[in-house]
């Protein structure tokens, strides 16, 4: 009735609304982990990486799962999705709309595939690297019984990954032990592409630094210098390094955590990594947290996006993927 009265006395007076008062100056990604429920299954879902466009608010995610084999070997699974981010309600949600990419057919085998890592950004670090070229998909697989690092070229367009060329092993980095979870460290050495990866070549899992040959991508190098990082490692297992900008996040079951594997981070000051710091009780639990990766959000969010996996209670079963906002560092 009240609205009816308005219509009687307020005809045609108001200008049309051109926006609402925003309750957030910038977006905030939930600082408490959110289960990626539209992706997770009752099987183990972990080891993810993604391509994300903040302008289009879309993403393409690749992760390892044993859902296709009903709990046996792990294959890569991929989904495309979109992000809903509302500065009025504060809502941030990642949801999926499609799945399946041609790239996966080239890399998935009857064995396990883990640790996906997509390169396509930061061409300005490498004079010989042109945008749209040399896109590489690093991952690890164990056809020989132990994990080795592999690389496969790929193209990306219209939300679709397709392979370009056949996968090949990075022999300068691989041994008869387990190697995996390669992550490039852009700009660490002039003229050389550098990376970090995990290996148990010295007993427990540790994080290793690798530098390719001068003027070559690490995937093109016939040799590589490999050094165990003394600052990042502990006597426990240190795994799954992922570098975003000047920050490395990784999983470790070292002392000082909340139980099981926890997520830790270290900051690179231009010449050295800081002592690792636990990501805290808002993210870590007494259960396992595993394979984190961070996506920078630029100026539109107060925090960065991190996706990781955990077998904490409350999920769909086994390891589930979670996303969470972490402070910019």
């Amino acid at each position: 009735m009240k609205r009816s009265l308005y219509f009687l006395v307020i005809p045609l007076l108001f200008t049309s609304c051109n926006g609402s008062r925003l309750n957030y100056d910038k977006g905030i990604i939930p600082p408490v982990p959110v289960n990626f429920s539209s992706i997770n299954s009752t099987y183990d879902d972990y080891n993810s990486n993604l391509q994300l466009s903040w302008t289009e608010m879309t993403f393409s995610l690749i992760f390892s799962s044993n859902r296709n084999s009903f709990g046996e070997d792990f294959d890569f699974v991929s989904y495309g999705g979109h992000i809903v981010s509302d500065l009025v309600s504060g809502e941030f949600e990642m949801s999926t709309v499609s799945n399946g990419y041609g790239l996966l057919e080239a890399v998935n085998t009857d064995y396990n595939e883990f640790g996906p890592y997509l390169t396509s950004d930061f061409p300005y670090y490498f004079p010989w690297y042109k945008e749209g070229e040399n896109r590489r998909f690093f991952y690890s697989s164990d056809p020989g019984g132990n994990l080795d690092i592999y690389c496969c070229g790929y193209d990306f367009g219209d939300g679709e990954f397709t392979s370009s060329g056949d996968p090949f092993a990075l022999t300068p980095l691989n041994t008869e032990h387990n190697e995996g979870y390669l992550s490039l460290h852009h700009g660490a050495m002039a003229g050389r592409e550098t990376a970090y990866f995990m290996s148990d070549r010295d007993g427990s899992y540790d994080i290793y630094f690798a530098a390719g040959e001068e003027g070559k991508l690490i995937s093109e190098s016939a040799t590589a210098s490999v050094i165990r990082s003394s600052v990042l490692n502990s006597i426990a297992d240190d795994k799954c390094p992922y570098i975003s900008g000047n920050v490395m996040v990784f999983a470790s079951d070292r002392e000082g955590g909340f139980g099981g594997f926890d997520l830790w981070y270290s900051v690179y000051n231009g010449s050295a990594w800081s002592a690792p710091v636990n990501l805290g009780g808002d993210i870590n639990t007494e259960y396992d947290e595993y394979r984190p990766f961070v996506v920078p959000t630029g100026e539109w969010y107060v925090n960065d996006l991190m996706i990781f996996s955990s077998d904490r209670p409350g999920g769909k079963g086994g390891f589930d993927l979670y996303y969470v906002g972490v402070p910019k560092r």
Partner: protein
Amino acid sequence: MKRLTLVLLVLLLPAVTVLPQKIPAKSVFGASTGVSIPLDEFAVKYFTWDAGFASLGPNFEAEYLYYGKIFGFSSSISYTSIFFNEKAYQSEYDRTLNGYGTNEVTAGNYQIMKFLVGFTLKTPEFSNTEVMLLFHLGYGVAMHPNLLVTNSEFGVINSVTRNAGRGAVASMGLKINYWLNERYGVSLNGTLNGMSSGFIDETAPDGNFQMPMNHANINIGFVMNLKTPAL
């Protein structure tokens, strides 16, 4: 142009209708004060499109009426100060951030100044009482308060600097005058006011926003007949 013509017609209507009413017209000044109640989106206190988080506030109004037996015209100037509900606003941040960090909200008041003109329809006076309907159109200047929200973990998460906006106003009201004598009386009136104002938010991607500021006023005051023989 059409709107201007409409407004002029609205203003002329009482003038041509008061004259044939065969009784002495009253020229009345009134002043009143009361409470303003935000309505619709302006009163909404949860995060949604156009929510104003406005609470009650005081208002002051001065008016002039000129009317005969049934028709008349009137004009008014009013000032309204409406409190911003900081507690409700903070609780929405507590909710949407899942209790992460401690949120603190500081805000001033909404302020609205309205300039209205229009016409009246009234009942013939009975038992020293007049009941009249007021239909007003006009212009409003509104002030959006300073608004600052901080989170102990993230720092400043929302800020709007105090700034003024403007917009058209439409108002409809019911007014009851009770004349104590030929010159003085008391009044009770209630009005519905429709207004929407544009404001600036320098920290928002668009830089500005539109806010519906519909509100009701319930006032009591006095009226004074300016055309009594004593004058």
